């Protein structure tokens, strides 16, 4: 595994705390009594996180769980109270203003929930804004901004002001702006939460398309568990500033670490999340199986019909056509009706 692009250790953001009162032990953990002091709010509580190159990490939590504060600590829009953040091995929190500005001008892009477009600039000018800030020549930034417009499919809207665009179009501008500097790291703070459900779905697909083209390292914030399941490589679930659990969607659904996480996962359509590999049995010698196999990476929902239609268990193969497991009808039923699997 390669070096993580983002690495944070013992990260804290405590609002309303006088830094002089901070007491930290050798591991960077803040003494718990301080967190409960009157008048302080702990928005980020001892967060440790690694994001690998090209990984899409989703930070999921309800409002007030500290997820927005966390992403702002990672981009240093908010100064963390203690802990460390490394971006590609560089110490983010030790950077001076100049270094930080350079980093943002070359390595980071961010998309905001309410789009945060500059009202006095057209779509094209908004997209070109970060390029202008770093002093690019007019010809070059217009050219780059036009490419970005094409990338997000807004041709013909270059000269519209934000107020003349629909929500979905505005967020496309926001996405294009955040991508204009060709950043390696892409922060998205609830980018689709302010959009209508249909537009949201369309934008999610668009986002997946962009990511398959660009392969950025992404931290994506959302409060929508379905969205997290649909997009994530890994999900981190936050509650009261802490990360309750971090892992692949299947892991979280199958093995919720805490009650809080299991409450989230209880209503999830598990057949849409779980893959065959995570519910099958190991292959047993001599067992009679059906003749057509299913792929180990298939989602359960795609094989339900076939498996339930067989009299015999179904063999599971990997990409090399080697049999790696066997799937019984009971497995499928357990995925579909988890709470009814144990008769009283």
């Amino acid at each position, binding site marked *: 595994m390669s070096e993580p692009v983002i690495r944070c250790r013992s990260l804290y953001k405590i609002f309303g705390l006088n830094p002089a009162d901070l007491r930290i032990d050798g591991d960077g953990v803040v003494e718990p009594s301080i967190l409960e002091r009157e008048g302080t709010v702990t928005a980020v509580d001892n967060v440790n996180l690694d994001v690998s190159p090209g990984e899409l990490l989703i930070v999921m939590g309800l409002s007030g769980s500290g997820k927005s504060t966390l992403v*702002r600590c990672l*981009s240093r*829009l908010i100064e963390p109270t203690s802990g460390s953040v490394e971006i590609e091995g560089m110490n983010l929190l030790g950077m001076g*203003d100049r270094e930080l*500005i*350079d980093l*943002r*001008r070359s390595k*980071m*892009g*961010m998309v*905001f*929930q*309410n*789009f*945060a*477009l*500059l*009202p*006095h*600039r*057209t779509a094209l*000018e908004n997209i070109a*804004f*970060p390029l202008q*800030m*770093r002093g690019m020549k007019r010809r070059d930034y217009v050219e780059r901004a036009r490419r970005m417009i094409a990338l997000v499919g807004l041709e013909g809207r270059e*000269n*519209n002001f934000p107020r003349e665009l629909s929500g979905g179009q505005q967020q496309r501008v*926001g996405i294009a*702006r*955040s991508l204009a*500097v060709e950043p390696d790291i892409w*922060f998205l703070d609830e980018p689709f939460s302010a959009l209508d459900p249909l537009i949201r779905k369309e934008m999610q697909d668009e986002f997946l398309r962009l990511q398959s083209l660009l392969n950025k390292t992404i931290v994506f914030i959302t409060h929508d568990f379905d969205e997290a399941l649909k997009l994530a490589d890994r999900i981190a679930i936050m509650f009261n500033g802490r990360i309750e659990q971090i892992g692949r969607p299947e892991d979280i659904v199958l093995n919720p670490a805490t009650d809080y996480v299991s409450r989230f996962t209880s209503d999830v359509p598990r057949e849409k999340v779980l893959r065959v590999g995570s519910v099958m049995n190991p292959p047993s010698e001599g067992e009679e199986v059906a003749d057509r196999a299913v792929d180990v990476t298939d989602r359960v929902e795609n094989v339900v019909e076939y498996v339930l239609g067989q009299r015999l268990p179904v063999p599971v193969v990997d990409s090399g056509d080697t049999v790696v497991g066997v799937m019984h009808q009971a497995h499928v039923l357990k995925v579909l009706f988890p709470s009814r699997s144990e008769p009283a």
Partner: protein
Amino acid sequence: MKGYAWLGALVLALLLAKSAGLLPAFLDELPLHLEKSSIDTLGDAGKEAYTELVPFGLILDHTFEFMREELGVSLVTRFVSKRLKELIDIFDNILRGGRKGLGLSAPPWTALLVIAFILGYSLKGWRLALLSGGTVMYFAIFGLWKFAMETLALLAAAVPISIIIGLLVGIVAYRKKWLELALLPILSVAQTLPHFAYLIPVVVFFGIGHQTGVIATIIFAVPPMVRLTLLGLQRVAPEIVEAGKMSGCTNLQLLFRVQLPSARNELLLGVNQVIMQCLAMVVIAAFIGASGLGYRLLHKLQSLKLGQSLEIGVAIVLLAVVLDGLSRAWAEKKRDYAADLPFHRRFRYPILLVVMVAAAYLLAPYFPILEKVPRDLTVTYAKTWDGLVDWIVLNWSDGLTNFRYFLIVNVLAPLRDALLYMPYPSVLLLVAGLGLLLGGYYSALLTLAFLVFIGLAGWWDRAMITAYMVVFATFICIVIGIPVGIFSALSERRAKTALFWCDTFQTFPSFIYILPVIMLFQVNDLSAIMAVIVYAIIPAVRYTVEGIRSIAPELEEAATMAGCNTRQRLVHLQLPVAIPHIMLGVNQTIMFAFSMVIIAAFVGTIDLGQQIFKALSETNIGKGVVLGLCVSFMALAVDHLVTRWARERRRLLGLD
């Protein structure tokens, strides 16, 4: 509730004790400088027993003296005064010619006419073009050209300076929390300090004259710009600032390319406010020697040439409406980057402007009428107006005198005497109780502190007289204004009309309201109150209309579906929901009344305003400032209590 009963009982006990003659003098009255006998006579110049408990005035006098002489402030003021004079001369020269400033010759009046016309047309269209062009015509035809140009030159100097200072202070205050905290109380005092109170210190530091007027104007116009700059910057969504930071902005780039442009609406509103405040103040600055339309108006008013005064007043009003219209249209103008127009289309208005002005210059030597309106072509209807006033005096005199007599004897005098009769501790207790009821201990202490200052400064009685005029005027404004507002709010079209007239009337410089009142009632205390009522009724109407019209449509629909008739809808939905907003209107009415009561001193009152007036003519700086603060503090006390209540009420109704 028990605490309030105690307070009430105490007030009652004080009153009873006084009527029984048992109240010791020190609990009854503060040391006075107004004897009872003098109250009924106007302009009691003789009764000046100045017995303040704390000599605030003297302290201020010494402070200012110290600043002027020892700290070398006078060197600075002299320098500023000189530079400003040069600036004004330049604008004066551009507009009027003459040997001062740049030494240009006067432009033909038609040049200004086409500028006004094209500016109006390019910003909003024909109506504004006709209005602004017509105003320039009016100046020319009614022979007010010289004075109007003087006023415009003053504005041209004062407005940009006010905007720049306000913008800078606002930006620094946005970035430095301590400055914001220090500025907020100053800004609220500045907003309620009477116009005249500004003039006195300025005169002391800068002497009498043209540039002093501009300085007073700038000092008066800067606070709203600061306030709106601060507000605008604070209202920029945090996400937008973050987006700027993530785009790699340096601090300066963030300010000039993200924050200020995003605060555009508030900043442009600030510019509009500065222009209107400047115009209002330029008129009043006539009292300290600023020439122009205001000076001319004052001059004619003092010699009771009402017809000519009216013509000047109309000119000022027209100027106000035009400047307001132009600056608003400019603020609302959408910029169209998209249109990829050829040069001559894109700059069609500037080109047209240059061509027309050039034409005016070229043709003027051949057609003298284009250069200057000949004297025999100017008109005046002053005689007609004077005749009308005479007719009113002749025919309505009896009726008006009776009306006036009735009002004074049966309403005003008893009200005033009642306020003066109350022992001062009872007033303090009542106000403190109100504060306690509406906002808790903080409010009670704050309002009490305001009143205690007035008592200690020795202006208790004058303050009570000011208070009685404000109370009476406010009462009338509520009785007339709110029903008018309700009536207007009941139909969309009427509401629009009402708001339009409120907007228009509000642009008039307050001093102008004195004019029609003098024409009807001559110079006396009743006309002062009438002027106050006419001026202060505007917010009562406006806020009522706004409050009712801004009720959520779902609520109106719910009322309709519940089968409400018009009266039920009004009583059960519209009034209860709109009342916090209406109360804010009443608050504004009271603020307007305070400001107008002081201006109305010009037509004869015997309250604080008249004393400020006197302080101005004596250039008694300490007295003037203390009096100004007294008025400001009374207004702030009321303002605090009413807005407090309205906010609480809005919160309870879940309207925020």
